[in-house]
């Protein structure tokens, strides 16, 4: 229940983020017992590189607390959608925070928006969408994979988010978004292999006063077909972006300084050039990572004008 409000103390049933290091974070559920691989209930102990953590012993501690382990420390954080994205159990490829942020900005979501997402996938984007549209908005999320929808649904409930989201098992490319959602949505997000197949349905699902459609596709061919379809259905202001985030590592570097000027003159005593080689300057600088995700996906945004000024081909 730790997603729906700011909490000071850790309680049973919360999902927490255990922070061991930059690239070493885990989401854990605060329960006394969990089933082991044979289905037997055993004590909830989480093994870290700094020693074992009895997860239930965190109850009553404050969020942000530093927990002593036998060989080091761990910090306990309340999850945000960003931390969740980094620790979510992957059931599919997920969309990460840089793209999520851009998608939400481009769709102009605010508290109160009615937004549709398909497919649900691992629910990484869903958590960020719910954060924006709460408390009086709603997320309708669809996936054609039944198990994924069930897992996501259970997750929303555990996280205390279920009243802001409705998840349905449906192939929207074949069935559409459903009659009850016609002219209800402010924005529709498509993360589908064939997004253009959902666009006819999207037109009748967006509000009569217009709305936004955003599509995320890894391949440029998908973008081309989607854009052609969007234009034919009266969407305007089409834009496609690619956003890559780079993390830079801040560090001190010691740079040796060579004294070469002294070589122009005859040296009085010893070899000054050699000695001066030991001079160094301490520089605060940043290093880029050796490799980075060079491509995630193309984000296409389009606007559907209000009904009375729409033009279709």
């Amino acid at each position: 229940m730790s997603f729906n409000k700011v909490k000071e103390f850790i309680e049973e049933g919360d999902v927490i983020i255990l922070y061991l290091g930059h690239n070493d974070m885990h989401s854990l559920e605060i329960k006394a017992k969990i089933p082991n691989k044979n289905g037997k209930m055993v004590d909830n102990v989480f093994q870290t590189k700094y020693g074992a953590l009895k997860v239930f012993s965190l109850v009553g501690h404050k969020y942000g607390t530093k927990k002593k382990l036998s060989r080091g420390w761990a910090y306990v954080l309340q999850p945000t959608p960003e931390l969740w994205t980094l620790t979510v159990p992957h059931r599919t490829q997920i969309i990460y925070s840089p793209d999520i942020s851009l998608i939400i900005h481009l769709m102009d979501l605010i508290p109160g928006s009615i937004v549709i997402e398909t497919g649900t996938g691992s629910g990484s984007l869903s958590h960020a969408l719910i954060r924006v549209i709460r408390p009086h908005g709603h997320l309708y999320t669809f996936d054609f994979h039944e198990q994924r929808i069930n897992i996501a649904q259970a997750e929303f409930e555990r996280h205390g988010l279920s009243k802001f989201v409705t998840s349905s098992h449906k192939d929207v490319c074949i069935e559409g978004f459903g009659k009850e959602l016609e002219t209800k949505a402010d924005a529709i997000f498509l993360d589908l292999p064939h997004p253009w197949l959902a666009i006819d349905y999207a037109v009748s699902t967006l509000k009569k006063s217009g709305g936004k459609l955003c599509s995320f596709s890894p391949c440029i061919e998908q973008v081309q077909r989607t854009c052609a379809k969007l234009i034919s259905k009266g969407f305007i202001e089409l834009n496609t972006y690619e956003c890559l985030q780079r993390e830079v590592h801040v560090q001190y570097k010691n740079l040796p300084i060579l004294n070469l000027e002294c070589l122009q003159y005859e040296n009085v005593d010893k070899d000054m050039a050699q000695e001066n080689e030991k001079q160094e300057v301490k520089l605060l600088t940043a290093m880029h990572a050796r490799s980075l995700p060079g491509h995630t996906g193309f984000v296409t945004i389009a606007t559907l004008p209000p009904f009375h000024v729409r033009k279709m081909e």
Partner: protein
Amino acid sequence: MCENEDNIITVGKYVIIKKQNFKKIYKVATNGTLMLGRDTVQMHEIIGKPFWTTFEMIPVKEGKRTYFLKEVLETESLNDLLNKLPSGNDNRTIVDDGTSQKLSKEEILRLQESGKTGKEIVGSLIENNKSFLDRTEYSQEKYLKKKEQKYLRYITIWKPNISLLHDVYFQLDHNKIGNLRMDSLSQLLSYSDVQSDGLYMLYDSGSHGMSAAAILNRIGSNTEGHLINLHPGNVPQLALVNAMNFPREQLDKLINVNIYSFLRLYHQGESAVLDKISKKVHNNCINKIKENKGKNDDESLVNNEIPQIEEIDMKEENLNNINESNDKVEHSTNGSLKRKRDESDIHEAAEVTVAKKPKWLMETQDAVKLVKGSKARGLVIVAKEHPLNIVTALLPFLGFSRPFVIYHAHREPLQETYMTLKQKQSVINLRLLSNFLRSYQVLPDRTHPDILTSDTGGYLLSGYLVQ
């Protein structure tokens, strides 16, 4: 219904004027005019019409570049000019010797002033262009797109939202919003966990209210959230907050306070602040001279106020100069200027009578009350200054396990902040980030990245506060 009312253009509202690819912010006035390049447009026709209405600009008098607006349902498109026209396969026969267009500049100008429609003008341009038919169809299309920009005189009125306002400002002059590109802006909002409830703190020293408007937009209306907008000057920059047409109730969630007053009041109490004010009365003349030197900015409230307002006023003047030529946000800056005067009046009044609490003091007290009641859920810093002292002063107001994010156009101050924060051990998951954003031209068989891309995304430093 109130939604319908929201969708009608009324006097006092900010709107976005769109002419082809050009967008501009305009505040609706009873008999307002708008400068579009060298054209003057009389705007009263838009009042009472719903958003998304399109108007044609019609010359008031032949030969003058003043236009009135007429609502239109259908806009003409130049695309059917291309129908049935032959086109070339490539450009082997086209020689750029400047003689393709047989019409002279004067003749074209006369066409424009004769009151002919954009389509008629472009029609005769094509007719008199001897190489047009040799161009490939793609090239012909591109030619028409360019001419559409120039000769079609339709404007559409849109309702402002954050992405549109950002777009207008970023294209006009990204310096005005601190080079905050949309990817950085969107990540500021994510990494600070802004949402409808909770208390958020923002320090912003120069984005024309872009970050405050974006955060307030995410807090929403009829919600529980609050935003304390700390600024270094006498008055906050709120141009973009105003341009959002937020309802009163939503604006009331925003408290703008001077960071010096806020911290002094919080740490030293009301008497310290009131002392400053009465000293100010006594030493008014002496201070005025000192103040102009602008020294000891962080030492005294008195000293930092007046130099700052001068600085801002100078900036505004510069802005207005730019506006005369570029003329895009004149109304929003005028609006903030007016507000500025109002507020400085209040400050002056405060100098004379201490008995009556000035408005800024009450607002500062409200802000202090808020931070005493609860820790902030998120902290955002968009600074032109070195961010280290700012984040050090504001981190104590942030709750544990809560995130902060600092934006700066330069990397070096964030590196230094990173190192200092890292050594404190009360922040974790510190990350220094920069983004690469590019847009694409998507057309059948002609998809490629746009030729021009912004390379000034700035840097973000994000982290979480722990015990």
